[in-house]
């Protein structure tokens, strides 16, 4: 019964895993021509490339902005939806819409909103007397635009997970707290938050892993050729450009290995740290 999955995973995932590591030690040029073993040359090139360091910095910035904002907003909405309100399932569907919509369709609209020449945002800005900007080409705003879209699409999904976590907390705790005269905020800080830490932990891990792999938004809103790509590209975007725009597949494999190592390191670190704040009883 496990044969199809095991064989499929073997061919398309297990073998590729080792192949990437092997390829990262080879010089592979255009048309997949393997020009031989080069040791750690790709890694040396990678770490001495200023663009790579800028890319890493960009990626960490994405994580630092997108992860907490998505988490807090998702938690906020989940808590609001948990107060006995009417139309819960309608709210849930609507909030979930951005999360299930094709990134290409979504970025088309957002790109138009942020467009520097005929964008909606600029119409609003000039309408209230503020200067228009080239939002997506401006070094100080282009990354922010991508973050806004990412947060907009994240909130609904993680809200549903957090809401389910909140609803899983036994009503008895709240009843006891009410008898003791606890306020809404006290109930949130003393009951909801601590008992929700396993779910929050899961959400944080998923958010970090997915944010580290940001690609669609950057590809679709900035594009590979724009000037702004330098200060917006993520590690995955850099990987994509190395492999397919510059046909340096050995080098791209080294970038992929680095991405994997970083994500693994962060996940292991989080697993170690969870004892300090995650409450499993």
């Amino acid at each position: 019964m496990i044969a199809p999955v095991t064989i499929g995973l073997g061919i398309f995932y297990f073998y590729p895993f080792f192949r990437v590591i092997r390829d990262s030690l080879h010089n592979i040029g255009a048309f997949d021509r393997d020009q031989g073993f080069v040791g750690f040359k790709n890694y040396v090139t990678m770490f001495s490339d200023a663009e790579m360091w800028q890319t890493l910095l960009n990626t960490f910035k994405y994580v630092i902005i997108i992860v907490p904002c998505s988490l807090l907003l998702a938690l906020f909405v989940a808590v609001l939806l948990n107060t006995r309100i009417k139309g819960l399932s309608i709210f849930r569907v609507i909030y979930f819409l951005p999360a299930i919509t094709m990134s290409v369709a979504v970025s088309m609209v957002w790109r138009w909103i942020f467009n520097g020449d005929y964008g909606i945002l600029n119409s609003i800005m000039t309408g209230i007397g503020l200067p228009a900007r080239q939002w997506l080409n401006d070094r100080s705003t282009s990354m922010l635009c991508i973050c806004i879209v990412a947060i907009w699409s994240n909130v609904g999904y993680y809200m549903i997970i957090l809401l389910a976590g909140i609803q899983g907390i036994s009503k008895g705790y709240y009843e006891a707290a009410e008898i003791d005269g606890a306020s809404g905020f006290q109930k949130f800080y003393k009951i909801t938050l601590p008992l929700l830490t396993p779910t929050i932990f899961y959400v944080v891990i998923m958010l970090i892993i997915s944010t580290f792999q940001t690609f669609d938004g950057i590809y679709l809103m900035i594009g590979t050729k724009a000037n702004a790509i330098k200060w917006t590209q993520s590690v995955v975007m850099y990987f994509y450009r190395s492999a397919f725009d510059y046909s340096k597949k050995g080098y791209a494999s080294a970038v992929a290995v680095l991405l994997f190592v970083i994500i693994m390191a962060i996940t292991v670190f989080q697993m170690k740290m969870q004892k300090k704040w995650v409450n499993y009883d």
Partner: protein
Amino acid sequence: MGLHTKSRKNKFSTIIVYLILIGGVVIAVAPFVWMFLTAFKTNSEAMAIPPVIFPKQIRLTSFVTIVDKLPFITIYTNTVISAVVTVIAQLTFCSMAGYAYARIDFPFKNVLFTITLAVLMVPGTFFILPQYRIIYKLGLLNSIPALFLPNLFSAMGTFLLRQFFLSLPQELEDAAYIDGCSRGKAFLLIMLPLVKPGLVSLGILTFKFAWNDLMWPMIVNTSTEKMTLSPALSFMQGQYVTDYPGIMAGAIMAVIPVIILFAVFQKQFIEGVAHTGIKG
């Protein structure tokens, strides 16, 4: 008096909660509304500064032009085939493997399961270059199978369904065996229906992923006739930058199936996602 102020305070906070939630709704749907309104506009209405909100007249011209400009129907069909095949394969393969890992003892079970989990830990992008090479070696670049082949097998799906099978009581199955039921029958007729929320959420997540995915189909299939919607629309956005009603019409047709699917299976999907969130 205390009671009276308390209920007034409650009413007030309820109103605030609704206002914030409705504000959130506006932010969540505004881009969709804009997409929708634009698709019915003329090009000059769409590009007007200051923006025109409502089109003067509802016209379907942009839906017709988009179908003409791209081999839209072929691309749509490719996307449907790719997504449906992926979903069916994953549900079949992952439920079989998930059940086996949860309920059957076989040699090397732990080793194989650990390997499956290990695959789950690796970011998807990591595998793309060798996967691309395999497709290339098989002579499948620019073909429909290229779109779905690596996605038919899922470590995540296997793990997810294993968790669902594990949460079912063993007695259920034992009772079936006492009644002379075979393993295959017990799996198909008793166990499988009980993990329906798991199957639904895996199905929707997989469909959503296969339907929306950008990087993989963009890499393997570069000819327009073999593309899926995501790369095709992104390509079109570059080609026809100024035809906003056209690209918005395309975008609407592209997002509708996933929205309908989600609306129909909402309850089970949320049950499933909630389950994964808590167990994860």
